[in-house]
């Protein structure tokens, strides 16, 4: 009922989909599998009409569709259930369902009795014990997902896409959801199911398609598959990029974590050491708790369990200002939002974290500032017309260097990098890698979060793999992608998790 062939989609220079073919039949659950950035999200957005593909064809119910918009997709019976349900928290269940399903003429009179009745019916059909009058705010996450499914059913959806629906569910809640999915299948609905949990795919799916680097690698029946083969398909790629080699043995332990945890952000029981001169890669899937761990170390969401030691001394870090004072630097993930201030000159950006140090007399010393900025521009090879250039005028890779410079200026002992080369072109990527290795060589302890598997493998002296908010495996430098992926997916092999 849904057929995509050779679909391509590019964002600027990045080719997110390089030719994906995918078919979905009525009454099947078709799993979509791939590591971070393989193109799953883009593919979903193409199917739901949020993105227009650049090439390839889409057929729905045997008819070729061009110009698929979200409204058109909705009409064709395509519904998508996201990991975070998109409901209005202050409205009741019935009102939420009504908003999705009823016509939207502004002056139409609402038939409340009918609205309630329809909501109750839909909820009953999927076996959800939710009152239509309950406020969505008071529902649990799985209940909200059930409401989403009820909406999809009510809209007469024949194609339901579920994007990691179980990511925030307990096992028991997930079982309930599976029952609903099986029921949908029985009623002839085609389900596209995305999950990082392989066991779910084996329990639920009929077929599976593996995406890698924006291409559909293979589609086959789940019955003929085993986990090892799936993982191999997901990561099987050649490393085409040369990484600067590690030299010399690492020095003293800089950072040591003991059973560190933070209830608010879901990180628990993290034990880790990072030494001077060492790059520790932090691998894992999106949502595994890597950024959350970094935010704990930088005092953004302070830890409430366990201990942090810097150079053997126990410290508490409860604000970014304290973290900076302790010699911790954090180059955040989303540099456009939390890193470089685009409107400010790069010189101002670079000195933002060191005001107390270079301007002790509170008066800014523009000469000193300019010198610092010029030095970093030269050292890191930032391509800009000068320290006065606004951050927004630089390319992604150069902005990343500015962000890096801001933190190097604090003269840190521990550098935490969060996705240091995300959205950076190949040339700049390799330069940033060289800079990171050089910094480690100069004695910095580096903790590098990355979803780019080859980058983690190529750069790290040791690899810590996170899953479900904790570190499940420590792997040595020369691990292969398969081992990392297996640990990230929870298919631990050699007794790695503790």
């Amino acid at each position, binding site marked *: 009922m849904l057929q995509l062939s050779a679909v391509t989609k590019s964002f600027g220079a990045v080719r997110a989909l390089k030719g994906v073919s995918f078919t979905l039949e009525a009454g099947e659950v078709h799993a979509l599998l791939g590591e971070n950035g393989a193109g799953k999200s883009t593919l979903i957005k193409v199917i739901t009409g949020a993105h227009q593909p650049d090439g390839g064809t889409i057929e729905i119910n045997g008819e070729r569709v061009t110009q698929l918009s979200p409204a058109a997709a909705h009409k064709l019976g395509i519904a998508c259930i996201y990991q975070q349900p998109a409901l209005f928290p202050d409205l009741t269940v019935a009102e939420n369902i009504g908003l999705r399903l009823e016509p939207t003429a502004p002056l139409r009179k609402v038939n409340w009795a009918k609205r309630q009745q329809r909501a109750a019916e839909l909820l009953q059909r999927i076996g959800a014990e939710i009152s239509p009058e309950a406020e969505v705010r008071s529902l649990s996450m799985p209940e909200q997902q059930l409401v989403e499914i009820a909406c999809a059913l009510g809209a007469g959806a024949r194609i339901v896409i579920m994007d990691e629906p179980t990511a925030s569910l307990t096992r028991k809640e997930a079982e309930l959801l599976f029952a609903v999915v099986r029921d949908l299948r029985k009623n002839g609905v085609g389900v596209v199911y995305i999950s990082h949990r392989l066991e779910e795919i084996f329990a639920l799916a009929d077929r599976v398609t593996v995406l890698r680097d924006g291409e559909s690698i293979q589609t086959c029946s789940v019955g003929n598959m085993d986990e090892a083969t799936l993982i191999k398909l997901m990561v099987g790629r050649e490393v085409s990029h040369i990484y600067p080699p590690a030299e010399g043995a690492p020095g003293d332990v800089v950072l040591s974590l003991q059973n560190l945890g933070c209830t608010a952000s879901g990180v628990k029981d993290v034990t880790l050491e990072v030494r001077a001169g060492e790059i520790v890669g932090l691998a894992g899937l999106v949502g595994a708790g890597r950024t959350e761990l970094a935010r704990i170390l930088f005092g953004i969401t302070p830890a409430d369990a366990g201990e942090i030691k810097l150079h053997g001394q126990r410290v508490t870090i409860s604000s970014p200002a304290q973290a900076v004072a302790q010699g911790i630097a954090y180059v955040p993930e989303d540099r456009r939002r939390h890193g470089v201030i685009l409107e400010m000159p790069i010189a101002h950006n670079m000195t933002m*974290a060191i005001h107390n140090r270079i301007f002790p007399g509170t008066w800014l010393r523009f000469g000193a500032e300019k010198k610092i900025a010029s030095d970093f521009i030269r050292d890191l090879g930032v391509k800009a017309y000068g320290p006065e250039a606004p951050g927004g005028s630089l390319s992604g890779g150069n902005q990343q260097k500015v962000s890096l410079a801001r933190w190097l200026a604090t003269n840190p002992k521990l550098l935490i990098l969060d996705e240091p080369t995300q959205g950076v072109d190949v040339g700049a990527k390799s330069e940033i890698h060289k800079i990171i290795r050089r910094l480690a060589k100069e004695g910095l302890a580096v903790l590098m979060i990355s979803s780019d598997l080859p980058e983690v493998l190529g750069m790290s002296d040791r690899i810590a793999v996170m899953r479900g908010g904790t570190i499940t495996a420590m792997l040595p430098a020369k691990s292969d992608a398969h081992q990392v992926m297996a640990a990230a997916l929870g298919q631990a092999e050699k007794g790695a998790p503790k």
Partner: protein
Amino acid sequence: MKKNFREISIAAALVVVLLGLAIFAPAFFQPQPLLSLLAREAPTLIVACGMALVIVSRQIDISVGSQFAVCSVCAGLLAAQGWPLPVVFLASTIFGATMGAFNGWLVAGLRLPSIVVTLATMVTWREALRWLRQGEFVNLRDGTQWLGLSQVAGQWALILIALGLLVVLALATKHLSAGRFVYAVGTDAEAARLAGIRPQLTTFFVFVFMGALVGLAAMMNVVQSPQVDPKSGSGLELKVIAAAVVGGVAVSGGRGKLWGVFVGLLLLACISPALTHLHIQAYWEKAIQGTIILLAVVADGLRTRKQNR
């Protein structure tokens, strides 16, 4: 050039208006009325500078008019008691800073939206003052008006104080770490926080500073007349927000220069006397001011849209 484009275009508009006046209404440039006009606007300039900083930090303070009235009356009462003028200036500034600190505590400490907080304090201060004073004017002693100088000398003194403060503040925002913190917090509070700047503390002090400037400005207004009107400062918030916006301060925070605010205020202040001299009925003033503000905001909107593309 491109960097100061906004400020320069406002300055150009001001020059055009002044040239027009020079041709069609040379009477506008008679020294004494002009001096009075500038002296009247001197306190407004100081409040507008504070407001510019508040807006740059992506907040708003609409309680300045009420703060102004409270400070005026308190300062007037102290002056009428015979306190020395420098002490009264200081006291007025401290009153203002205290009211600003209260706003700052509510906005930065309790993280309430500044528009709501200052709307509440605007009404509260104004009504409390009305209740306490029953609209009574405060009669000042002889030596208070014009700081005990002649009128011309007093007016010059006030204008010079305002201009001096403008220069100091403009330099401070550029040359002090604190100034840059305000801009950083206004552009991107989260990025600033990640860089070890404390956005809440910065916001708090911006409000305190705003209040202090209001207190000072109130006193500069008090010394211009023989008695203190308890309704003084009504509508001041609109005037200074308008001056800031016209002068190129972005309502979305993070951008704006104090000298631009100065030019913006001059432009708005010229309109009323210009109309009089051109024999146009005075109720056109608000309409023209509104049009200028609208033009400024639309220009900003178009510019941001172009940038985001």
